């Protein structure tokens, strides 16, 4: 394999505390090394910014609902379907790009890893078929557990070992990475057309509350010692006044310590917090609750969050929060897609237009930025758009420009049609903070890598780590002042190295790299009870046979298995 030396670049690396110093980065055999031979190819990074490959902590990029979004929205292809130069397949779609475009675009932005945020176990094969076809970037997927019948029954009986054994079984069957929980209890209630809007609402029939599900799943996660923590989309998403429920849910993590061998410190990752930080009682008196929520997050060290920034685009919302999508459809009356999945979960899709002329949407935009700007520890707050819910991931460069420049952000804020109302309902106008390149490397590299339990190989440029490197045409000494310039610089890397190979050069895709699928193999003590329950539920309630449930090896030809051992816990 080729050797490279990246010379004279301004390096930003939180794992080594390097803040823009000029430093040469050496690459050999897919890893970052101390030095390389004289024959190594030289990449001139003078006046450029060098960072590790970025990690996406939460996006909907592969699987049944993403694909339903693609094919039931032919109009999305009209917005942006032009083939770009490079050795690429046909690219299509804007808010829900095709798999090819998804891989290329992440690479062009400097990303080398993406986490599919919600995998219905019954549809795991579909998720992996798409991951298989997505080029360049490494991926993993989180199976959803928050409305799973097994989980609810075990937790109701306070059986954490059984919950953990079942989760370990599912991770193996679905090639899953960790524990995702979407609207705990609420989605099961949705199977009867109902919902759980607070963490103390009872789930119909199962006689359990969201709070109990959350606590049980956190405990099961730490019992197994998984690389990633419990990852939650909370109850009551997107409703005015929900910040109280949000803080109530976050409080459930108090006093629980992370137990794992991956350097992860949080026990709960609360995703797209923007949607959960609203005050007021209706859309008329709606106000930002970002400060209240972030004040709590800042002092509670065992939490991580991501933002869910609204990008003010036409997009496609999709979530396992089935009742929310039904509610949203009632608000905008655009086409509604819903799938309820037996014993496990549900999903809904509704197209959505975040019109900047609307005060509520503009305020949501402000709330998302506030979340990131109020974050005291950039290692615990990550930038996402909850792709494609708050906007497509291809808008990250624009989000960065708003976060990194008060001027750019204020230009947008002050030119809203209802600027006065937005300024009154939010605190953004009073925030002067500008995210630095170093903080950006924490929020998009080192932070998410640590949160996902991948900090050994990802998120930094230390010798021994994966040679996943993004080089941007940004001179930190002359940081671009206009939004358009910042956007342009982040949208097309000068170079992207993935596992030591140049995959993107000058914004052009030149190599497909070697894509890996990550999953976690959790070993647990033999559990006859759980195996019996699984057999029984497949015989009586599932519509497929147990033998046809697992995802075969062939779906992940380059699999990277992370093993954890919980057998000694019994």
């Amino acid at each position, binding site marked *: 394999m080729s050797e490279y030396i990246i010379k004279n670049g301004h390096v930003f690396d939180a794992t080594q505390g390097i803040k823009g110093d000029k430093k040469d980065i050496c690459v050999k055999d897919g890893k970052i090394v101390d030095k390389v031979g004289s024959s190594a190819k030289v990449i001139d990074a003078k006046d450029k910014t060098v960072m590790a490959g970025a990690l996406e902590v939460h996006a909907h990029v592969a699987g049944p609902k993403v694909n339903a979004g693609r094919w039931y929205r032919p109009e999305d292809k009209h917005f942006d379907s032009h083939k770009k130069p490079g050795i690429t397949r046909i690219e299509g779609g804007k808010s829900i790009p095709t798999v090819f475009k998804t891989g290329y675009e992440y690479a062009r932005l400097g990303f080398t890893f993406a986490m599919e945020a919600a995998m219905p176990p019954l549809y795991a094969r579909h998720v992996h078929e798409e991951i298989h076809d997505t080029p360049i970037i490494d991926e993993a997927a989180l199976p959803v557990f928050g409305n799973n019948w097994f989980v609810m029954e075990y937790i109701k009986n306070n059986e954490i070992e059984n919950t953990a054994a079942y989760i370990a079984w599912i991770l193996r069957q679905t090639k899953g990475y960790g524990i995702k929980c979407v609207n705990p209890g609420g989605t099961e209630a949705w199977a009867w057309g109902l919902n759980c809007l607070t963490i103390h609402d009872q789930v119909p029939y199962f006689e359990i509350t969201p709070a109990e599900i959350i606590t049980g799943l956190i405990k099961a996660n730490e019992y197994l010692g998984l690389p990633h923590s419990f990852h939650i989309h909370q109850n009551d998403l997107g409703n005015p006044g929900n910040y109280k429920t949000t803080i109530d849910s976050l409080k459930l993590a108090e006093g629980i310590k992370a137990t794992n061998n991956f350097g992860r410190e949080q026990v709960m990752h609360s995703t797209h917090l923007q949607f959960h930080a609203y005050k007021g009682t209706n859309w008329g008196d709606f106000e930002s609750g970002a400060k209240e929520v972030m004040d709590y997050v800042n002092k509670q060290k065992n939490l991580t969050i991501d933002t869910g920034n609204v990008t003010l685009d036409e997009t496609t919302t999709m979530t396992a929060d089935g009742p929310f999508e039904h509610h949203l459809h009632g608000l905008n009356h655009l086409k*509604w*897609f819903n799938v309820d999945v037996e014993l496990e979960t549900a999903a809904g899709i509704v197209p959505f237009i975040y019109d900047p002329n609307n005060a509520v949407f503009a305020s949501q935009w402000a709330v998302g930025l506030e979340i990131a700007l109020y974050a005291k520890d950039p290692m615990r707050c990550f930038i996402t758009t909850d792709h494609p819910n708050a906007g497509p991931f291809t808008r990250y460069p624009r989000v960065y420009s708003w976060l990194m420049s008060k001027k750019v952000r204020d230009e947008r804020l002050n030119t809203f049609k209802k600027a006065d109302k937005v300024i009154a309902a939010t605190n953004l106008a009073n925030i002067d903070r500008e995210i630095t390149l170093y903080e950006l490397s924490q929020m998009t590299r080192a932070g998410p890598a640590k949160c996902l339990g991948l900090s050994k190989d990802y998120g930094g440029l230390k010798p021994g780590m994966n040679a996943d490197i993004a080089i941007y045409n940004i001179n930190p000494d002359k940081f671009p002042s206009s939004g358009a310039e910042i956007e342009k610089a982040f949208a097309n890397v000068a170079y992207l190295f993935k596992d030591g190979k140049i995959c993107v050069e000058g914004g052009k895709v030149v190599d497909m790299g070697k894509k890996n699928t990550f999953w976690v193999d959790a070993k647990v003590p033999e559990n006859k009870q759980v195996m019996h329950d699984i057999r029984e539920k497949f015989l009586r309630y599932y519509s497929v046979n147990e033998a046809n449930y697992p995802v075969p090896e062939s779906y992940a030809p380059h699999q990277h298995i992370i093993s954890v051992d919980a057998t000694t816990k019994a």
Partner: protein
Amino acid sequence: MPKEVTDVICPFCGTLCDDLIITVSDDNKTILGVKNACAIGAEKFNHQRLPGRVKRPRMRQADGTYKEITYDEAIDWTAKMLVKSRKTLMYGWASTSCQAMSIGHEIAEKVGGIVDNCATVCHGSSLIAIEDVGVPSCTLGEIKNRADCVIFWGCNPAHAHPRHMSRYSIFPRGFFTVKGHKGRKIYAVDCRYTDTAKCADEFIQVQQGFDYELLNAFRTAVRGDALPDTVGGVPKEKIYEIAEAFKTARFGIIFFGMGLTHTMGRNHNIDIAINLTRDMNEYTKFAIMAMRGHWNVTGSGQVLGWQYGFPYAVDLSRRDQARHQTGETTSVDLLNRSEVEACFYIATDPGAHFPVDAMISSSRKPTVTIDPHINCTTEISDIHIPVAMVGVETGGCAYRMDNVPIETRKVVEPPEGMLTDEELLTKINKRVDELMAKGGA
């Protein structure tokens, strides 16, 4: 000793039963028995051992007879045809694996093909309606576990999806449906008294061509608004009564088929059926599902979806952009307008299903058909390339009518030397690359 292979997936219809037990001869070559399958599914497996099966590619001669050729010759001919043609219809895909489709799409992108599947003459109108208004649906297990109100509209699973009713929709006992069919109210809406209607508690005979009106009347009745005395031949009292029953159900489901998609109104029928379902969700829980026909037509829509963003009729002939427009990029219209220069058919039989004019147009073009068996289409093709039967002689992924993916199983060896779809397409793809590197055919 013969042995039993269990948990076998039936590659016949969109029900995709996965509990078949197949008895296989000791040498893994012959199927001796099929358990749990319906009559059609069993026949599909039994076909495998029928005498007279074509085992090598055949090329049509000037006198209309067929001559056996080698796979290499057939691959070369096919690749040359694809490279030479500026626009090729690549139709079918509904009876092969998703893995094979993926390779086919790669070829189509290179040579400028139009990839279309059987939805184009089947549930294409449903897909158009979903593109317009979305669809609230669920997996089949949800129906088994929860549904107490099941409506079959313009579909006849007793014949077309024979095990659907016993596995999912009428008879099974589920978690919240412990009484099985006794706890479910079954409605059949059709212009004929079908065998499915015989299983229903209530048969509603709609006047032919009045499905839209009747669905509209249900929407009206649900809202409590006034109706004329009869709609589509159904008295208004009946409509009000049934609408009330829908509203008081705990979990309702509408299954629909060709009786809605291919009668007057087509996509508009589906549109309003979906809108009725949507309305019902204001009162209770309701879902709707298309009764997809071919066992993996759903899979073709899925793979096309994630690769190009459209479920069928995907025009890749521009090579830098995928297009999809019903009436423009759909197979029958392309053939009727004689807009393609060659035809490539795989894993489906357009000769049996397309309008005659379209097939006359097709028969005048260079044509290759890839199919395990002789069918109507192979007989108007220049070349017929037989392949292993997917789901019987080779595995691969398939999607059920509710989009649940299931990996089909290989139960016996294909005849010696016979290629699978995946192997054949890989070789064609390679040959296309060689020809294109040389600058054409």
